[in-house]
């Protein structure tokens, strides 16, 4: 009997029923993220409308793109023949690819050189950018890169960059040797170096006074002429009389301070590199080249162009402006009023004017400030001005980093007995630079974008190439979306990559475990 009337008892749990359709999967996600309330729903619908409109408009243009045509007219004929209403003429990119990348004057048989330099740049940058993963010895490649790249892009004798590199290494050795000299030996050296430095200083003073006298003589009005003349004659006589004594005086001063090795070491090293670069570079490189000729055909700077020019300007100016920016930032923090004043005026002036005016200076004004008949090329003048420009901005970023350091760090360094150089090099800068990395990267990205401005002073970077030789040629007259789009993509890739790298590095460097 019990068999028939037994109540049902489950032995296992029933499987959970699936959640309601609107509470799971895509629908739940859409409900929460797209249609959470009426306002969000309206926003979503408007956004969808715009996306569809954009895709609808742009997709046929992309898909119908013509990749093979010799001119814009031919390209339109192809489109018309295929019965397409709209379509891109990407053929311009194929046709003018070399021009967009290298400019229109760079010799075609040398295209491999900047290409190789660019590939090497990636390898040279890696040890510095990903220093935590790449062994330290690969930094040698980074150090050697500027010389290799210079030789590859500009050509000429290989001995010039080799000699410059050798001179720098030799200076390092001089530094080491003097640092480890016995005190008595260094005292004698100090006397010699002191006299040399003193004569240099006196020469500076002397030639400055002479130049001032010349200026006063040239621009002083008839009546006023007497005063500046008297003044600057006095200054010149002063320097004539004190020319030699001053050298001896400074030499004696350094001689007396022989115990403090740092200054003597530094001045000796500076003198060594000055002598090597100013007097030995030319003859030695020429001689070596005569014995073993190692030459690539030289390409003058004015032939650089295209995206290559933007990359050259960007990398050179950024790498030059970081050390300059550090010096300016330290100068602005200095307790010496003269040094501080000069740095403040420089930084504020450069930050107050647009880069374009500085490029105008490079283009038309800088020549007036050089000795007559000196003629150094536009790209170098532009590099100088852009470096000045970005170093002022980097200086401000680093100043922020310096200011963000707790005062205790400075005091701790002092209490350890470190002098200014040691404290700055070992304690202050490593921390301050770490804080300023995002800011420096921002400036670097901004600077790289600003290199397009050189097209305004008729240099043919990628924008200059588009505005000049491409848009004004009869073949590709008034083509704009394709070429500007290409330029935009070029810049986007590099700038976006750099900013992503900086965010990654920031996470790597976050040692404060917050």
């Amino acid at each position: 009997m019990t068999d028939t009337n037994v109540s049902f008892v489950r032995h296992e749990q029933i499987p959970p029923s699936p959640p309601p359709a609107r509470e799971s999967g895509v629908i739940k996600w859409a409900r929460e993220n797209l249609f959470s309330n009426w306002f969000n729903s309206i926003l979503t619908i408007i956004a969808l409308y715009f996306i569809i409109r954009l895709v609808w408009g742009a997709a046929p243009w992309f898909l119908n793109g013509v990749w093979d045509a010799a001119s814009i007219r031919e390209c339109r004929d192809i489109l018309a023949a295929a019965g397409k209403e709209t379509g891109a003429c990407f053929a311009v990119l194929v046709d003018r690819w070399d021009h967009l990348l290298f400019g229109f004057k760079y010799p075609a048989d040398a295209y491999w050189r900047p290409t190789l330099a660019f590939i090497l740049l990636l390898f040279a940058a890696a040890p510095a950018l990903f220093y935590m993963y790449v062994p330290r010895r690969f930094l040698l490649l980074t150090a050697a890169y500027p010389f290799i790249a210079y030789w590859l892009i500009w050509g000429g004798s290989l001995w010039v960059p080799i000699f410059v590199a050798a001179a720098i290494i030799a200076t390092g050795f001089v530094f080491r040797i003097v640092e480890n000299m016995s005190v008595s030996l260094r005292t004698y050296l100090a006397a010699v170096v002191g006299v040399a430095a003193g004569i240099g200083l006196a020469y500076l003073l002397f030639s400055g006074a002479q130049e001032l006298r010349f200026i006063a003589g040239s621009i002083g009005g008839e009546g006023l002429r007497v005063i500046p003349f008297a003044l600057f004659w006095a200054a010149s006589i002063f320097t004539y009389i004190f020319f030699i004594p001053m050298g001896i005086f400074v030499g004696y001063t350094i001689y007396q301070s022989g115990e403090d090795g740092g200054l003597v070491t530094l001045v000796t090293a500076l003198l060594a590199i000055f002598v090597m670069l100013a007097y030995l570079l030319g003859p030695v490189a020429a001689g070596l080249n005569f014995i073993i000729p190692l030459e690539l055909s030289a390409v003058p700077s004015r032939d650089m162009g295209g995206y290559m020019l933007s990359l050259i300007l960007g990398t050179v100016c950024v790498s030059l402006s970081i050390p300059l920016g550090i010096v300016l930032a330290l100068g602005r923090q200095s307790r010496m009023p003269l040094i501080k004043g000069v740095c403040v005026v420089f930084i504020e002036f450069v930050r107050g004017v647009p880069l374009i005016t500085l490029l105008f200076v490079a283009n038309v004004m800088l020549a007036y400030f050089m000795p007559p008949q000196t003629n150094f090329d536009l790209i170098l003048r532009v590099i100088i001005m852009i470096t000045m420009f970005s170093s002022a901005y980097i200086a401000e970023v680093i100043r922020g980093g310096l200011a963000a350091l707790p005062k205790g760090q400075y005091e701790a360094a002092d209490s350890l007995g470190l002098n200014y150089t040691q404290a700055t090099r070992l304690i202050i800068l490593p921390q301050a630079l770490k804080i300023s990395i995002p800011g420096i990267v921002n400036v670097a990205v901004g600077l790289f974008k600003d290199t397009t401005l050189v097209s305004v002073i008729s240099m043919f970077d990628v924008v200059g190439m588009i505005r000049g030789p491409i848009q004004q040629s009869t073949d590709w007259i008034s083509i704009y979306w394709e070429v500007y789009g290409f330029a935009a993509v070029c810049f986007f890739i590099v700038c976006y990559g750099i900013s992503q790298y900086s965010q990654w590095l920031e996470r790597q460097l976050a040692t404060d475990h917050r």
Partner: protein
Amino acid sequence: MTTLADQPVGTSGDSFKLSMLLNDTRYRSLTFQFIALVAIIAFMAFVGGNLVRNLAEAGLNISYGFLGEPAGYDINQRPIDYDSQSSHGRAAVVGLLNTLIVAFLACITATVFGVVAGVLRLSNNWLVAKIMSIYVEIFRNVPVLIWILIIFSIMINALPGPREFRGEDPAASMSFFDTVAFTNRGIFAPAPEFTNSFGSTAEMPVTSTGTDWLLIIFALVLSWGISGRVQAWATHTQETTGSRPTTWYYTLGIWIVPVGIVLSYLGLTWNVPELKGFNFQGGMQLRGSLIALWFALAIYTGAFIAENVRAGIMAISKGQTEAAAALGLRPNRIMSLVILPQALRVIIPPLISQYLNITKNSSLAIAVGYMDVTGTLGGITLLQTGRAIETILLLMLFYLTVSLLISFFMNIFNNRMKLKER
């Protein structure tokens, strides 16, 4: 026994030694500054001497006399009276005003773009937030010069020419009830004119003068003052009685009535552009170069401002939102009363530098032929007179002054907004 501390500084027993100039921190800074001074003077003298030599060689001198000579070129956008017989100095002033016009317009538009994009980027609507991040990343990572040129090319190439508006069945037609024409020569929009203008006389009828606009501005300032008083009264009432009186219709009236009276006295009419011959006549013409520069600067800088706004909002701790919610405020009130006022303090300093960037970047006008001060003084005047040093120095001086003025006023504003601390 004497220790080192017992010896008075400066009058110590050991006399001054020359080596102290390098080894004693008291004198070392003087030595270094002396060397720096010598180097600076020598550098200046070197540069100055070269300048004098080069000028003498080229037979030039430094003189600003050219500013008074007739310029001989035309400027297509003239905020003040100017013709080709006016002086170079006046051309520079016209350019200067044009710079200020485009910078002002772009600052306002960029702020609107930036605030909208920055707030929407934090929206909980996934699609909108993504679109805004794409906007920010695309515009931040491509040079502004390329944006200016792209927008300018679109204005020139994609918009219809004025003659396409002609005929029985025109290819293009005017927008906004036949009042605004988008053409490749610029945008033609209605211009306000006053039939009863102040400067107008029977012999010389004019349609608008500075006096008219001053009157309108005066009316607006008046409204602003009165509406401030109304707000103060409302706050006072709220503090004494606890309930805030509804004031929006007072405010509306205060803003509309004085301006309305002034405008009806002046006799406001709209001069609508009309197609006559080959081009539109009447109304005001916003040239393609102005639009391209304005819009490109606004949308490019807007992307940067969006990031500043986002950072400012995210800098406010979540506790503030939660506390406001616990008080029973609605989300939009939380935003406007709690989050934004605090975020503003974080946002304003970078905003100042973005405004400075707009002003400086407006010099890119030269790429699209907008006649700003770089185009007149640093462009045509420089080419015509060949006075490179004078014009570029004036140009730099102008930008420096504007930059310093903007940062001065914005710093005053920033100080007023700053949290008052002890």
